[in-house]
Structures are given as structure tokens and as C-alpha cells.
């Protein structure tokens, strides 16, 4: 069990956990700012960004992917603003038009281009390929101390670890301005907090997290990782600090249970084949949100306010 687990399951589980946390952290603020749809938009526009970066560089190295995705996210934000102003339509519709068009463009580009040499095709773009991120060089827990085996870790793992650390570090560093400007933008501006830069920074951080999570869960299911853990966490507490803690816990639980259920669940139920880990992670996070809605200690707060 030990050696097989380390080789086949350890790295996918770690990548799933880190990707979930990296998305859940900015997700807390996106949900509180009622910008959850921006998370959706980002996760979609990341695809054409990645494809264009691949077509230009011919590799799937992290840096060009990140730049491509960040560029696509920036273009999307500009397009959304332009359409909103020129077309005078409501923000939701502008967002919907932009991200579906850019995503569709990404799918077409991907189909037309030769990506056979790398893990970049439509199916992976949609659902991720978490199960394939295995650590062939490992032959047991001792490999964790073996430099040769460690050097052969799937590159996605250090990449997502770096992104997760970056997102966590930025969240910590900018905690106060993020919190103040999310709660009361006018007051934040009156104190000299650059709220526009803060909100663009949040969108870019979310875009970077979305690219890094792309390997694990693809560009569609990542939206569940932005929204479900923070939304469930909101129902557990009335303090933002505690909410972010809960969202991290829910992100980890979703990733671990999702991976395990996808790999072993069908066998327990008498099925033959494992199911998509990304799909199962999103499903578990949705179930957690459902449970929080039913049993979360702060689920009644809106009703209380209404009777006030």
C-alpha cells in the first residue's frame, strides 16, 4: 500500500489540496464582493491565454502559461468594462458575453493546433488530469528523502506549491486593505487605500490561482473551488478571519475526499472504473456547501436581520 500510494496518489492529492487552497483564499473575497462570477469568467478566459502562450512558446512551462493567463484575464477585464460602458448593458451580461466568447475561442484554437506532444487538449482543459500527475520515481515513503526521486516529481507540484504560497503570502500581507475595501470601499478610499489596485490585484491573484489549478481540475470545475469552500465557510462563522480558516479546511477536505472517492468509490459500489477526480472534488465541495446550508451555525443570519 505504502509504495503504491506514494507513487500513484500522493502527488495528485497534494496538488489537489494546494490548488483548492490557492483558489479558496481569493475566493473568500470574490464571494464577499459579489464577484463570484468574476472567478467563473477568469477560469474560462484562462484557457485561450494558456493556448496562445503555448502556441507562441511551444512549451507548457509555467511562466509563459502564467503570463498568458494573466494577459487573457486583463484583456477580459478591459473587454467587460468596455462592453459595459459602450453597450450600456448590465455587468453580468457583459461578463457572460466576454468569458463565453473567449473560452469558445480557446477551445477552437486548441482543436486546431497541434498539441499532441503535451498535456493540452480539450478534455484536459475542461476536466483537468489530476490522476495522471503521478510520481513514477517514487518507491515508498523513503523517496521523500531521496534527492534523485524528488528531482523527478511532477513539475506541477512545485508550481502549484509556489502559487499557493504566493497567494497565501499576498493574502496575509494585504489582509487589512483587502478586508476594509471589501467591506466599505468608500471608507477605504477616504483613508487612501488604493481600492482599484486592490481589486485588480485580487482578480490577477485569482487568475494565477486558476492557471495553477488548471492542471488539477481544468478550467470549468475550478469555479467550484473558488466559490464552494468560501460560501460554506461563511455559514460557519461571523468573522472573516475564521471564515478564511474554515474555507481552507473545506478546500483540503474536498480535495482529499474527492480524490479518494473518485479513485475508490466506484469500486466500493461494485463499479469497474474510477471516475474523474476533478469532478468528484467539485461534487464533494458542493455537498459540503449543502451540508453547511442545512447545519451551519450562521445559516439563519439573513432571516434574523430581516425581522429586525
Amino acid at each position, binding site marked *: 500500500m505504502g509504495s503504491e500510494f506514494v507513487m500513484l496518489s500522493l502527488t495528485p492529492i497534494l496538488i489537489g489540496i494546494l490548488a483548492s487552497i490557492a483558489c479558496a483564499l481569493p475566493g473568500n473575497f470574490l464571494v*464577499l464582493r459579489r464577484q463570484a462570477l468574476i472567478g467563473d469568467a477568469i477560469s474560462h478566459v484562462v484557457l485561450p491565454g494558456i493556448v496562445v502562450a503555448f502556441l507562441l512558446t511551444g512549451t507548457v512551462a509555467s511562466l509563459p502559461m502564467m503570463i498568458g493567463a494573466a494577459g487573457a484575464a486583463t484583456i477580459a477585464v478591459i473587454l467587460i468594462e468596455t462592453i459595459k460602458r459602450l453597450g450600456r448593458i448590465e455587468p453580468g451580461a457583459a461578463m457572460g458575453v466576454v468569458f463565453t466568447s473567449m473560452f469558445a475561442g480557446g477551445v477552437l484554437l486548441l482543436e486546431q493546433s497541434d498539441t499532441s506532444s503535451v498535456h493540452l487538449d480539450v478534455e484536459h482543459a475542461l476536466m483537468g488530469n489530476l490522476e495522471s500527475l503521478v510520481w513514477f520515481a517514487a518507491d515508498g515513503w523513503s523517496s521523500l528523502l531521496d534527492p534523485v526521486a524528488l528531482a523527478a516529481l511532477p513539475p506541477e507540484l512545485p508550481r502549484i506549491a509556489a502559487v499557493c504560497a504566493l497567494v497565501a503570502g499576498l493574502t496575509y500581507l494585504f489582509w487589512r486593505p483587502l478586508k476594509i475595501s471589501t467591506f466599505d470601499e468608500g471608507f477605504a478610499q477616504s483613508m*487612501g487605500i488604493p481600492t482599484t489596485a486592490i481589486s485588480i490585484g485580487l482578480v490577477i491573484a485569482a487568475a494565477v490561482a486558476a492557471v495553477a489549478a488548471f492542471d488539477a481540475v481544468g478550467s470549468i470545475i475550478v469555479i467550484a473551488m473558488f466559490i464552494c469552500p468560501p460560501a460554506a465557510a461563511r455559514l460557519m462563522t461571523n468573522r472573516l478571519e475564521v471564515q478564511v480558516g474554515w474555507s481552507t479546511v473545506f478546500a483540503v477536505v474536498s480535495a482529499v475526499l474527492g480524490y479518494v472517492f473518485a479513485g475508490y468509490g466506484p469500486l466500493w459500489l461494485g463499479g469497474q472504473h474510477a471516475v474523474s477526480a476533478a469532478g468528484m472534488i467539485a461534487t464533494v465541495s458542493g455537498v459540503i456547501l449543502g451540508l453547511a446550508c442545512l447545519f451551519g451555525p450562521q445559516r439563519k443570519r439573513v432571516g434574523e436581520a430581516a425581522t429586525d
Partner: protein
Amino acid sequence: MKETPVKVAAEDGRIVEPPTSDDSPLAVRGLTVSYGDKPAVFSVDTIVPQGSMMAIVGPNGAGKSTLLKAVLGIVKPLSGTVSIFGESLSEAQQRVAYVPQRASVDWDFPTRVIDVVLMGLYRELGLLGWLTNRHRKTARACLERVGMVEFAERQIGQLSGGQQQRVFLARALAQDADLYLLDEPFSGVDAATEKAIIDVLKSLKSQNKTVVCVHHDLATVADYFDRVLLINVQKIAEGPVATTFTAENLQRTYGGRLAATHIDDLQLPAG
């Protein structure tokens, strides 16, 4: 079409140059703000003397809140200048406290009363400054002044509207400023809150601090404030309440929207 108001405002601002302001708490000259093609505030001048309590009064859509926001740099004016204690806004930012309209935020936000007040200490704390007991004591003292200290640990959504307004005032007190700008602090609050707020504002005035309130209740202007600025996009009148808050000026500010009987009820000095 779009260009016209800008030019007029700039010229207007130069022609109607008010007396020099030196270092008065708030001096606004030729301030014009526009949303789209229509000016919301047009070439407004005002100088607020230190230690005064000024009400900004005018009908809905007269640009009262917009004027405050432009002073605070929240909306960008098309033209005009704002000086605070003789300095620019960015230089004097730590001397200004702002109480936004209560309805402008989501009170379901996951935070407690004490945390909201601590936001007022952001300039002191900075990004990573360690939150100490001294800061918590300051925040509690501010809550004490508005009579909300027993609610310190409550989630803000569990408060009544008046209590929420008092928390906003406590946050402004925590900023320990010299100029307080409040946007409709008495809107939709209970009598106890109204009393608590006016007591705090009067104590600020007694410390020679300056208070500017967007205010909509004409009946209380004379009781609460010593100065008034009447605006309806443009400035109509400005000065001490006793001489400025007259039936004639109100009629000019509100146009036909204020019934004669309403003005009679206010028992104003003869214009």
C-alpha cells in the same frame, strides 16, 4: 456637448474666487463633478471655519453626497480644488474622518462591531502593524462614546439601523481626525441614536474640531448646526444658520418641491 460644462466651470471657478482660505479645515473652490453628461455638482465654493458644525442641505439628487465624495477623493472632480487645513487631500488625509451612508455597505459582512471600529486605526497600524491591547482599548473607548461598548463582540448584521450608524461613528472617532465628514448620519435612526450622535458631534465641536454633515431633516438644522450650505447642484447660499437658513433661501434651493406650509412649520427667521 460634453466639453461645455468643463470650460464654464473652470472659468467660473476663476471668476468667483472666494476669500483666501489659509489653513481652514475645508476650502473648496469651483468644484464640478459630473456623472456622464450631467453635472452632479457645479462649480461649488465653500470655506468651513474651524470648530464649526456645518449642514449640507438640498433636495434629493442635489449633489450633497457627491460633494463629500469629491472632497474625499472618492469621485474625481472635473475641475476645482479642495484644500484641507491648507494642504492637499493626500497630505492631510490622516486629519480627515469619513462616515459613509449606512446603506452603502453590506451589513451581512462577516465581522464584529469591534473589528469595524479597528478599521479606523488602519493608518496607524499599516499593513502588518501588530494589533495590541492599546488599540483594542482605543476602539472600546470609541464604542463607549457612542454607547455601543456592550455590543463590541456582536456581528454587525445583528444590530439595528441606529446601532449600525453609531458603530460607523465610533470608527470615525477611532481615526482621531480634526475634520469629520458625515453622509446623512441621522437618516433612518431611532431617537436614542440621534441623541447619541448629536452629543458626540457637539463634543467634537467643543474640542475645536470641525464637523460637516450631509443632512436632510430641515426641522433639526437650526438645533444641531451653526452653519449651513444650501446646494442644488450649484451653491445656493452658505453661512451661519441664523442668517442663511431662511425661507427664501430654502425656496430657492428646493424650487417648487417644498410646500409653503412646510416652510412655515420650520418657524424660520424672516428672510
